[in-house]
């Protein structure tokens, strides 16, 4: 029959030979690990990071109002970077209120995604015993509807 490729036996032989020659350590060089020199010096070819240069587009005395707005924005960006870390956003809603809202929210949204049968079960759990009786009456009726009705001969 058709034989493409080596026999399983010859494959095994080759593997064993390879293993003898190449062991796990073959893949690591014998050179000792070079200590990575911590470089404290960064080379930089741009003047922008050395000197504090302002933005190149400028407008004076209201010649171009958009650029004047941009100038204020750009030049205050440099100063704002230092202050950013200190500012914290004040919360509009307190934490307690948030927790209360979230609790109820999860329940209502969760109900939305229940399938019909589960919804019924959920409803029954919530209601009182008195109401349960009424429901129990309706339950077998509904169940009866859903069960397969044998055709009468």
């Amino acid at each position, binding site marked *: 029959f058709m034989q493409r490729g080596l026999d399983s036996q010859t494959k095994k032989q080759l593997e064993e030979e390879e293993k003898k020659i190449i062991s796990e350590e073959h893949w690591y060089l014998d050179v000792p690990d070079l200590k990575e020199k911590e470089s404290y010096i960064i080379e*930089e070819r741009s003047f922008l990071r050395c000197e504090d240069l302002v933005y190149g587009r*400028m407008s004076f005395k209201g010649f171009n109002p958009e650029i004047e707005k941009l100038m204020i924005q750009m030049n205050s960006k440099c100063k704002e970077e230092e202050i950013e870390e200190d500012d914290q956003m004040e919360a509009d809603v307190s934490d307690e209120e948030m927790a209360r809202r979230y609790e109820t929210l999860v329940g209502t949204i969760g109900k939305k995604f229940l399938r019909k049968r589960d919804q019924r079960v959920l409803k029954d759990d919530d209601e009182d015993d008195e109401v349960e009786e009424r429901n129990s009456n309706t339950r077998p009726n509904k169940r009866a509807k859903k069960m397969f009705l044998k055709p009468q001969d």
Partner: protein
Amino acid sequence: MAAEHGTAAEALVGQVVLPGDLLLLPAHYDEDAEGERLRLSAGAAPQGRLLCGPGLRRSGAGLLVTKCGLLRHRPAGGGAYWVDSQQKRYVPVKGDHVIGIVTAKAGDVFRLDVGGSEPASLSYLAFEGATKRNRPNVQVGDLIYGQFVVANKDMEPEMVCIDSSGKSSGMGIIGQDGFLFKVSLGLIRKLLAPKCEIIQELSQLYPFELVLGMNGRIWVKAKTVQQTLIIVNILEACEYMTAEQRKQALAKLSGN
């Protein structure tokens, strides 16, 4: 070549250095000498890394000077040393904002002349709000203010007109009219310094708009042609004028 004895970097700040000078850094930056700590004249020991700016190269534990000029130092933020040199020819550097002139449209890419050795490329999608269907209206001969995103000696420089957050923030096509001229790179840096007297004095004269490219190109636009030319002449001449001469010239103008 004889190895030169290096001199301490702080000693030469503000003085002329020549290519080939070796600057020694204080022992903070040398991981071997942990016991000896030299005190910097500035005071507290700088933390973080030292920035080795244009005109300097790292060599061993010191810095080798490659351009002649004045040595500058900034002690803030880890410290930075660089050489303040004068030149007219621009070499594209990543992150620089420059003014380019559109010379050709090649398919989806514009070729811009920025004054370097090669024309830079600018993709039509690199504008704010540009999509494949909504192309920017750029013609040959337009002026564009953009920044380099790729600029090294091995590759063709590439430019974009949006910043990292996708906003144009002032970059893009520069409008109609106005006057473009070329000055040396040192003057541009002087003009872009945080509190430049020249710019402050000029802004008192009349309303005008100014765009400065780091490649030595300046674009000026004022209400009348005469005002534009006056500003151009002042900017070109103020490189070699002293502060007093400049104030006299401006006083004459405002008197007119």
